């Protein structure tokens, strides 16, 4: 359902993505792991056009797009079918939890208010925050904010949701509630591409794992075999460092 081919991106003279290719099938939950500065976040941002890629091809919804020269209209159309969850939540601070969700439905999709509200309440229910509907982001904990952000992404019925280190900005005791929401989402069949440092999530929830370093994919595969027997020496070294830290 989604394919990225030979995605390249530099910041000035610094190459950040050196030709990345990946494929996702419907219902895949793919974790992207790897050391910081390896290009994971940039990859996600390029796929959703928050950064402009230098070159590469994106195939999505049966059409192929040149990532280096894609037009505004195509970008807008693709974004209507994707969701994005940020590391720092990025809820609209002048909107309540429920308004954060309905905004994209009423304003961008011209949905009637009643219908949007019903969908938003269902989405809040799904993340366990129905009773916080009228709270502003500043009145919510980090974990709750991130759950609202996930509900905001889910409510637009996207074909895929991108997660950019969704638990990295959270206090340790708040990580669990967000991961459990993501676990539920994964088991409901949502296609998810997740940049994460949470190895347990990558191991237990994701169906596939991609290991990235220095702007390239070093190794990828089904998550079971990937963690049980990584092929590449650099993957093995990374996984050893991670498990030594735990």
């Amino acid at each position, binding site marked *: 359902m989604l394919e990225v081919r030979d995605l390249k991106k530099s910041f000035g003279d610094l190459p950040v993505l050196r030709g990345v290719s990946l494929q996702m099938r419907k219902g895949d939950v793919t974790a992207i792991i790897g050391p910081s500065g390896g290009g994971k976040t940039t990859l996600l941002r390029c796929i959703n056009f928050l950064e402009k890629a230098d070159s590469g091809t994106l195939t999505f919804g049966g059409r192929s797009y040149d990532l280096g020269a894609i037009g505004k209209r195509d970008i807008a159309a693709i974004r209507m079918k994707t969701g994005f969850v940020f590391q720092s939540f990025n809820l609209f601070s002048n909107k*309540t939890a429920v308004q954060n969700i309905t905004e994209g439905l009423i304003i961008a999709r011209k949905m009637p208010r009643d219908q949007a509200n019903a969908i938003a309440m269902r989405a809040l229910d799904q993340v366990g925050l129905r009773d916080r509907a009228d709270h502003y982001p500043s009145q919510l904990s980090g974990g709750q904010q991130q759950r609202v952000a996930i509900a*905001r992404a889910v409510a*637009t019925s996207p074909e895929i949701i991108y997660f950019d280190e969704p638990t990295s900005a959270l206090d340790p005791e708040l990580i669990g509630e967000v991961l459990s929401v993501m676990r539920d989402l994964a088991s409901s069949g949502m296609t998810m591409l997740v940049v994460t440092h949470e190895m347990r999530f990558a191991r237990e929830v994701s169906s596939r794992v991609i290991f990235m370093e220095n702007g390239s994919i070093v190794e990828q595969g089904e998550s079971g075999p990937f963690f049980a027997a990584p092929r590449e020496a650099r993957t093995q070294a990374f996984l050893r460092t991670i498990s030594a830290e735990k």
Partner: protein
Amino acid sequence: MTERVWKILVESFPKILLPGLRMTLPLTAIAFVLAMIIAIVVALIQFARVKGLSQLCRFYIWVIRGTPLLVQLFVVFYGLKAGMHMSPFWAAVLVFAVNEGAYCAETMRGALEGVPAGQIEAGYCVGMSYTQIMRRIVLPQALRTAFPSLSNGLISMVKDTSLTANITVAEMFMATQRINARYYEPLALYLEAAVIYLLFSTALSWLQRWGEKRLQSLGGREARHA
């Protein structure tokens, strides 16, 4: 204070207040609304870094902030009057709007830049357009941040309208000058005018506090207390 001075003060009070209500307040209100429109447009152009227009806006702010208000009033009223057939009142409205617009534009630009860029990205990601994001997410937050500074501008403007006496606008200060020309009680009469300006400013301060409370109840600023 002598009985004569008291009598003059009591008699002149409505004669000063009335031009205040008829000239000073409408002048301030109209000019400030226009200034806000200018400020928002100029700030948005700069925020979006529109090529060419952005530089034009910087030039406008540079010129207006770099020259005295009184000089601007004279340039427009005495300098451009011949070709424009403008009444003193509307010349003053024009100058105050353009002048205050430049200052408020900078306040607004700062406030726009204070809205976290992540919220703009989030807006894109839920499918909103740039215009929708600005209108629904960024501008409301920026206005809330800018509100106290903008209120400052409004209160300053009420007092600065006294300068328009110099271009023959029959406002409070000119009325006071006229009364003083008759009775020659400068200390008492100009203090009386000062008190009326103070009343106007106080009312505006109350309005500001009321506005801030309302904005707070609409959310967004509680972060400070949370």
